[in-house]
């Protein structure tokens, strides 16, 4: 019989394990889950097989030498030593080498189901329905005690309290979980709802396995209304993510996608209200313009306007008559001037000015235009430019008829 402190027990356990030769150098076969690569570069994960599991750690210096680190769900052979981790009070496998033994069982099942349902058309994009813009009743399939439901209700309560939420509870992990999800879904399908959220908080691939089950996928496919999945915390997608009309990375995100924001609704309405005010202004403006037009026409028909119009046309007539008169006068003046010039051209003085002379008989003043008109010795009066003088006709040297 011994009484030990915790530290003493831990030291004892560490030494007991360290003394075991088998535990210093061994290969362990199992499936990796909860794989985490810390910021330090060390990797931590759990190896599982059946009901058993053991924590494993792989230091950075070893990680660097391992060609490919596994991810959660992969079946592996891990080499290392088993030791007691005193601070954590647990036995751990310290891994220095990992051989990946192909795709892990769960991943294999996942890939097989995904390929099969895809080929069947369950993921067809043409099938995806848009979410209703203003859902009245929102169905939620999730655990009634989980954080997922609380997150969803908080988001809806904040963003879109106009909605009514119908919670259809199910188990989200464990043996019976898939069957309860299917039941919860079909119970909702009986209800008058507009959209459904299927949600679960994050977890390992095993935790989320319910949503990779074929019966769940087919139940989701059967939804009569648009369905959005919000499973996990942005991990790898589950099968129902592919089947759902829309996939959200988390339950909260699903709620945000389902519900419009009340503030947006408010601004939508405010916009309509502004449009209405503007439209009223236009209607009033139209009536105002019509009224003004009527008023204008009325004033035009008023007697004073008529008088003014008549007076104006009278003025116009007088103006036109005056213009006509002035024009005629000018025309006549021009004609007169023309005559005057013509007359001046005919004045004999003008001929004298050019150097010609006019000859008249002194006896009777007859203009002599033919030699026969003047006898020899007859006195003649000759007018030239500068004045006139008398002359006598001499006897003709030739052609004298006498």
């Amino acid at each position, binding site marked *: 019989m011994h009484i030990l402190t915790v530290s003493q027990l831990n030291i004892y356990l560490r030494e007991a394990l360290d003394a075991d030769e088998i535990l210093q150098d061994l290969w362990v076969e199992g499936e990796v889950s909860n794989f985490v690569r810390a910021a330090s570069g060390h990797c931590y994960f759990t190896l599982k097989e059946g009901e058993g599991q053991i924590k494993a750690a792989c230091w950075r210096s070893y990680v660097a030498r391992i060609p490919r680190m596994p991810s959660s769900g992969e079946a592996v052979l891990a080499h290392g030593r088993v030791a007691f981790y005193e601070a954590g009070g647990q036995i751990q496998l310290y891994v220095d080498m990992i051989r990946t033994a192909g795709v892990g069982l769960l991943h294999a099942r996942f890939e097989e189901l995904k390929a099969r349902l895809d080929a069947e058309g369950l993921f067809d994009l043409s099938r995806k329905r848009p979410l209703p813009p203003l859902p009245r009743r929102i169905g939620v399939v999730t655990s009634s005690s989980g954080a997922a439901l609380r997150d969803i209700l908080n988001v809806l309560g904040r963003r879109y309290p106009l909605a009514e939420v119908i919670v259809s509870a199910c188990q989200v992990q464990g043996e019976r979980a898939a069957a309860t999800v299917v039941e919860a879904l079909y119970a909702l399908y009986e209800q008058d709802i507009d959209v459904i959220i299927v949600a679960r908080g994050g977890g390992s691939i095993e935790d989320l396995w319910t949503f990779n089950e074929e019966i769940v996928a087919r139940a989701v496919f059967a939804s009569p209304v648009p369905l959005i999945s919000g499973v996990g915390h942005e991990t790898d997608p589950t099968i129902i993510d592919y089947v759902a009309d829309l996939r959200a990375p988390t339950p909260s995100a699903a709620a945000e996608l389902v519900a419009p924001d009340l503030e947006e609704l408010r601004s939508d309405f405010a916009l309509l209200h502004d449009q209405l005010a503007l439209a009223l202004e236009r209607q009033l403006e*139209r009536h105002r313009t019509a009224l003004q037009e009527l008023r204008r026409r009325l004033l035009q028909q008023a007697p004073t306007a008529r008088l003014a119009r008549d007076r104006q046309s009278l003025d116009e007539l007088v103006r036109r008559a005056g213009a006509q008169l002035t024009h005629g006068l000018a025309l006549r003046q021009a004609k007169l001037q023309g005559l005057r010039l013509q007359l001046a051209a005919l004045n004999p003085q003008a001929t004298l000015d050019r150097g010609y002379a006019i000859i008249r008989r002194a006896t009777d003043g007859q203009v002599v235009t033919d030699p026969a008109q003047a006898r020899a010795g007859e006195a003649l009066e000759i007018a030239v430019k500068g004045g006139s003088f008398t002359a006598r006709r001499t006897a003709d040297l030739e052609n004298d008829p006498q």
Partner: protein
Amino acid sequence: MSTSTPPPTYETLYARMQAIVARMETGELPLAEALALYEEGMTVTAACQRLLDEAELRVQELQPGNALRRIDAWEE
């Protein structure tokens, strides 16, 4: 408005408002109708505002046999 008629939903109000605006924007309305429509628009806006201000999320849980049970204490 009598208290027995169910309160209009946001959808109904929004649709009515859209119809009012559309009518106001397209037709050449008699003055009286334009004014009446505007007044109705104001009433609808006020009703909508009230609806949004007073909205409170209702949560019910589906029970076996499709009965609904109201959940009140979901807020943390």
